[in-house]
C-alpha cells in the first residue's frame, strides 16, 4: 500500500482543487480572526471561540474534494492501472481514504494556523483547559475522518465522477438541513408566556407560563440529542460554536464518528471488492 500512497500523495500535491480549497480554508481563518477582534470590542472574546470552526465547513470542502479527486480515478480509468498490476482492492480503497483524510486535515490545518496566529496576536492565547482543548481537537479530527469515510464510500462505488461529486455535496446539504431541523427541535422552550403584544413596535410578554406542546419530553429530547451528535454537521456545529458554551457530550461525539468511520469503511471495502469495474 506504500506504493499506492506515494502515488496518491504525489497526485494530491499537483491537484489544483486541493490547493484552492486549502487557500480558501486559510482565508476563512483570516476572516474569522479579524471578526474575533471585532467581537472583542463588545465582550471578552477568546481565541477558542472559533478555533474549531473548520469542523463546520470541512464537510462541504471534503464533499467537493473527495468527489472530484476520487472520481477522476474512474473518469480517467487510472484505477484500472492499479488493479491490473496486482494491487488489492482493499489497498486501493484504503490508500484513497488515507490520502483524502490527509488532504482534508491539511485544509483544516491551513485554517487553524492562520486563525491561531492572527487570533493570538489580536486577542491573546488559549485560555481553555489543555485537556479539554486536546479532546476537542481529537473530536474534530475524528469528525473529519467520518466525513471522509462517508464521501470515500460514495466516490468509490459511484463510477461517474460528476454523479459521485453531486451525490457527496447533496448528502452534505441534506445532513446539514436535518441537523438544523433537529437543533431547532432541541431548542424549543419548555414553557412560553401566555401573552405577547407588539404595540408601538415594542414586543412585550408576560403573564402565566404555559407548557409548550412542541417541547419534547426527556426521552424525545435524548433521542434528538443523540441524532444531533450522530450527524456530522451536528458535531461540526457544536465544535464551531464554542462561543455558545462547551460541548455537552464530549465523549459521545468521537465514539459516534468512529462508528460512522468503521461502518462506512468496512462496508465500502467489502462492496468495492466485489464491484465489477469497466
Amino acid at each position, binding site marked *: 500500500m506504500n506504493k499506492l500512497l506515494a502515488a496518491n500523495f*504525489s497526485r494530491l500535491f*499537483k491537484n489544483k482543487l486541493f490547493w484552492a480549497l486549502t487557500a480558501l480554508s486559510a482565508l476563512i481563518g483570516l476572516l474569522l480572526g479579524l471578526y474575533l477582534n471585532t467581537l472583542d470590542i463588545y465582550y471578552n472574546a477568546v481565541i477558542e471561540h472559533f478555533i474549531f470552526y473548520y469542523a463546520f465547513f470541512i464537510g462541504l470542502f471534503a464533499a467537493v474534494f473527495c468527489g472530484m479527486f476520487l472520481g477522476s480515478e474512474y473518469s480517467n480509468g487510472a484505477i484500472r492501472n492499479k488493479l491490473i*498490476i*496486482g494491487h488489492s482492492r482493499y489497498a486501493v480503497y484504503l490508500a484513497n481514504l488515507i490520502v483524502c483524510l490527509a488532504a482534508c486535515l491539511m485544509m483544516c490545518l491551513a485554517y487553524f494556523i492562520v486563525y491561531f496566529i492572527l487570533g493570538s496576536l489580536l486577542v491573546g492565547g488559549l485560555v481553555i483547559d489543555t485537556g479539554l482543548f486536546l479532546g476537542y481537537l481529537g473530536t474534530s479530527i475524528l469528525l473529519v475522518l467520518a466525513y471522509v469515510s462517508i464521501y470515500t464510500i460514495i466516490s468509490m462505488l459511484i463510477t461517474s465522477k460528476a454523479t459521485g461529486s453531486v451525490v457527496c455535496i447533496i448528502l452534505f446539504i441534506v445532513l446539514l438541513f436535518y441537523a438544523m431541523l433537529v437543533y431547532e427541535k432541541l431548542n424549543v422552550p419548555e414553557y412560553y408566556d401566555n401573552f405577547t403584544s407588539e404595540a408601538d413596535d415594542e414586543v412585550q410578554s408576560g403573564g402565566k407560563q404555559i407548557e409548550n406542546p412542541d417541547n419534547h419530553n426527556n426521552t424525545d429530547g435524548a433521542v434528538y440529542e443523540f441524532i444531533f451528535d450522530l450527524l456530522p454537521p451536528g458535531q461540526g456545529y457544536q465544535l464551531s460554536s464554542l462561543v455558545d458554551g462547551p460541548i455537552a457530550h464530549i465523549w459521545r461525539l468521537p465514539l459516534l464518528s468512529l462508528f460512522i468511520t468503521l461502518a462506512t469503511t468496512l462496508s465500502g471495502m467489502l462492496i468495492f471488492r466485489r464491484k*465489477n469495474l469497466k
Partner: protein
Amino acid sequence: MEYVLTANALKKQYRHFYAINNLSMSIPRGSIYGLVGKNGSGKTTLMRVICGLQEPTYGGYTLFGVYYKAKAINKVRRRMGAVVETPSIYLDMTAEDNLKEQYRVLGLPSYEGIDELLGLVGLSDTGKKKARNFSLGMKQRLGIAIALCGRPDFLALDEPVNGLDPQGIVDIRELIIKLNREYQITFLISSHILSELSRLATHFGFIDKGYMVKEISASELEAACRKCVRLNVTDVNALSRVLDNLNLEYSIISGCEADVYGYVSVTELVMALAKENCEVKSIHEKDEDLENYYINLVGGGANE
C-alpha cells in the same frame, strides 16, 4: 507448449445474460493472439476478467500458471499490462508525469527508462503538453507506454486501433510487432478490424456470443484458407469437361462461375475452352481471407 494465459470454462453473468459462456482458451508464450469477434461478442468482458477488473461467475483462468484465486496472483499480475477500451491516463498530466505516476504505483526505485519508453511509443517530443491535448493515437500510445512501465511479459490490448487514422494504425501495428519481436512480449489483442489483425496475429481465437468458437494458429488458418482461381465463363458444362480432362480440382459456384484449386496454366485452360466454344469472361485469383473464414465460422447472416 508454455502458456501465458489459459482459461477454462469461463463464464461471466450479468443478471440473466451471459457475456462470456463456457469459454476456454490458451495463449502461447511469445505469440500475438488475435481475439476476433463482433461487437457484443464478449471480447471486452473477457479482457476485464483476465485483468482482474471483474470476477468470473464460473470457471477460472491461470496467468503464468497461477490460478486467479491464488494468493500469488497479485504478484504475477505485475508481469502483465493492459489497455482496456480507452487508455487509462491522467488527462491533466504530461506524458512523462503519467509514466512517473505509474512508476510510483509500481514502486519502482527510480525513473530510469521513462525516456526510453517515450521514445519507443514516439512521444519523446511532447514536452509539457498535457495528455488532454493529445490526439487519439497519441493517447493510445501513451496508454501502451503506461502498460509497459513494469516491463511486462504479457500485454492485453482491447481494440488498440479503434478510431485511429491510417498512420496511427500503422504506428500501433509497428509498435506491437517491435515489442513482440525485440522484447518477447506476448500479446492478446481484441479487434473487429480483421484485416489489421491478420497482419499481426500469430494465433487467432474466434469468439461469438460469449463462446470461443475456434482457436487456430496463423499457419493453420493459412492452410485452411485455400487459394483458387475464379472463372466466369459462358458455358459451365464445357468448363467442367475441360477441368476434368486437365485433372484439376474445382467447385461450381453458379451457372457461369467456378473455383479452380491448385496450379492452373491459364493459357492451356483458355485454349482448351476455346476448342469447346466456351468464352472466358473474367478470371481472377481468389484466396479466402480472415474475414471470409470468420464469417463462415460464425455465420454471415448474423454479422453486423
